[in-house]
């Protein structure tokens, strides 16, 4: 914080020396979940914006992980010096609203042009960004989970290497062929791997969506954890290892999943599109990328971070921040960001740029995530989000490890979530 203040002071001094009149100074916090190169890209883009817009100075502050960034923003806001702009997880919207920290983007989208811009994002991403008819978040670093499969393992099992499973049942059928056991019955390769450590709700939400269930309402104060369709989805997940034995039993590590895929421990894995580059660089075999298999319908959650405008900004600052967000979501800037990081570009317009087209031609796998967006839904998000998802995660873990039945676990979770959310109804 001292450091930040020092920098702000230095920036102020530098500008005092410059002749420009009505200068606007902005602070902008951003997290990076995928590695240091992404931070450089944000700083580059910010510098470009400053160069093109005289009189606006933006200080982009790399705040660490998502967890760090939200903590830092909350702390700063309580101390009365909130940033004007920050990228924070889309699911933290209700938490930030509860702390009374957010300004809606609608207040600044006055022209027709601005209003059209607000409507130019993929609806799947906007579901997490609106509540009460107002837009509080603008999608920026967003992702979605996809299915990766090992083509060589498919061929070895007598399956068509270019046809991944498209339904729950096919996952089981193919999974059985892909699960290899030695003479002693020990598994050397599993059929599929859906990691369940840390935040199992995210991938599980793929299953619930495919089964036509929605986990939370748009107001963020009701959840449907004990919906029979959710129970069915959890039963399916449990049965993948218990009944059909195509997935390893117990909790499966998220972090070790790509490695297990590279090592041939599993023939298929579900993980974020954010892993595309990693898999391309490290898989010692030919692999494919597909949408998650469907059941009642196709489906997947979205994930990642949005831009938020913070209260406490002066009118000028807020307008400048709004303008910056609008600029950075323009197709050219957005394409640059997507290519540098692997996040899914949040507006159709970006995908129509030449830059994106040639990138996709070179690496068609990136299109899978985009195409899946039409089936995607909002990531689970409620008031007291961390606590509610924690209750849900615990229930999933309890069912996966066989401590409780799917039904009992979800019933307990529903009761606990209802108690937490009572205050917000």
């Amino acid at each position, binding site marked *: 914080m001292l450091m930040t203040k020092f920098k702000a002071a230095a920036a102020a001094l530098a500008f005092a020396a410059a002749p420009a009149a009505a200068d606007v100074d902005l602070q902008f916090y951003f997290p990076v979940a995928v590695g240091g190169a992404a931070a450089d890209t944000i700083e580059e883009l910010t510098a470009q914006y400053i160069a093109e817009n005289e009189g606006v100075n933006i200080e982009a502050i790399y705040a660490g992980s998502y*967890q760090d960034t939200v*903590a830092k923003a*909350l702390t700063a806001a309580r101390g009365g010096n909130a940033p004007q702009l920050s990228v924070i997880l889309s699911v933290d919207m209700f*938490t930030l609203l*509860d*702390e*009374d*920290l957010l300004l809606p983007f609608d207040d600044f989208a006055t022209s027709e042009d601005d209003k059209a811009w607000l409507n130019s994002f993929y609806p799947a991403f906007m579901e997490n960004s609106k509540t009460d008819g107002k837009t509080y978040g603008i999608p920026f670093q967003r992702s979605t989970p996809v299915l990766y499969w090992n083509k060589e393992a498919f061929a070895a099992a007598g399956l068509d290497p270019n046809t991944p499973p498209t339904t729950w049942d096919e996952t089981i059928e193919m999974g059985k062929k892909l699960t290899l056991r030695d003479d*002693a*019955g*020990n*598994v050397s390769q599993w059929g599929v791997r859906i990691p*369940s*450590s*840390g935040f199992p709700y995210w991938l599980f939400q793929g299953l619930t969506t495919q089964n036509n269930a929605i986990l939370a309402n748009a107001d963020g104060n009701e959840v449907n954890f004990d919906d029979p369709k959710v129970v069915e989805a959890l039963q399916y997940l449990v049965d993948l290892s218990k009944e059909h034995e195509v997935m*390893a*039993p*117990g*909790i*499966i*590590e998220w972090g*070790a999943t790509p*490695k*297990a895929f590279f*090592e041939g*421990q599993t023939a298929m894995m579900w993980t974020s599109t954010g892993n595309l580059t990693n898999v391309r660089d490290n898989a010692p075999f030919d692999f494919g990328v597909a949408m998650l298999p469907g059941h009642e319908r196709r489906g997947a959650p979205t994930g990642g971070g949005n831009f938020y405008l913070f209260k406490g900004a002066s009118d000028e600052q807020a307008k400048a921040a709004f303008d910056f967000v609008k600029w950075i979501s323009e197709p050219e800037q957005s394409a640059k960001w997507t290519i540098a990081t692997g996040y899914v570009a949040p507006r159709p317009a970006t995908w129509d740029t030449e830059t994106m087209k040639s990138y996709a031609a070179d690496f068609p796998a990136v299109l899978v995530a985009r195409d899946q967006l039409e089936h995607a839904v909002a990531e689970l998000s409620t008031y*007291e989000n*961390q*606590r509610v998802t*924690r209750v849900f*995660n*615990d*229930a999933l*873990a*309890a069912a*996966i*490890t*066989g*401590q409780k039945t799917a039904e009992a676990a979800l019933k307990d979770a529903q009761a606990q979530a209802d108690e937490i959310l009572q205050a917000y109804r």
Partner: protein
Amino acid sequence: MLRTRGWIHAWLLLSPAFVFLIAFTHYPALTTLWNSFFTTPRGRRPRRWAGLDNYDTLIADPVFWKVLGNNLIYALGTIPLSIVIALAMALWVNRQFTGRSFVRMAYFTPTVLPMIAVANIWMFFYTPGFGLIDQIGSALGFGQTNILGSADSALYGVMAVTIWKEAGFFMIFYLAALQTIPVSLTEAARIEGAGSWTILRRVTLPLLMPTTLFVSINAVVNSFRMVDHIFILTGGGPDNASSLLLFYIYEVAFRFWDTAYAATLTVVVLIFLMGLAIGQFFLFDRKVHYR
């Protein structure tokens, strides 16, 4: 006059240390208690007096009971075992044999490593399928394990890491104590025909009693204090099977931002430690240590 000047001197010498001691230990311990009687303030709802509401929540909170139980198993499992291992280590290293300094180094090195680093190393050990345990297991014809991913074994997986790290630390205390036992004492016992087992039981162990008590207290405090490895290994999962009190406090305070409830949980830890302090006062002969 001279005496009061001495008093003032002493107080002046003490004041810098006490400013910090009080500011970061005694005062926060008291405000923890005080804040446990209020609600957590949020932007839209300022804090208000809650009476015993937070304690009602605590009693009704299944996670709290689970975590408390875990903490007891953790303490009862790691403390005696690390002490026995530490004692064995010290007795072995206290003798002359080939490679003694290597052996001593092997025992002690884990102590020097950060718990976070230790957890990273063990994470790879435990990884199902291609972690070291499964590699060795599969070479011997065993199937895959998932120690950290199963509710019945995750806590034990975490405990093994603790024992590995702590035994070497406790060994040092025993080693120090062993070297103060006069050789003449054990020699005398030997001349009288006592076997090495008898000497250990009748002479050495009783003389090591104060060390054992000191080490135990240390270990109990650590079992409440040391949760770093949980962050890396399990995140408290599955379904809180490997979560400990301080880890839960961290989650409540800094992930759920419910500081009032976190304070309430902290009060429980403080009660345990107070109990320990009182127990120590009566049990642990003050002559042994404070003089």
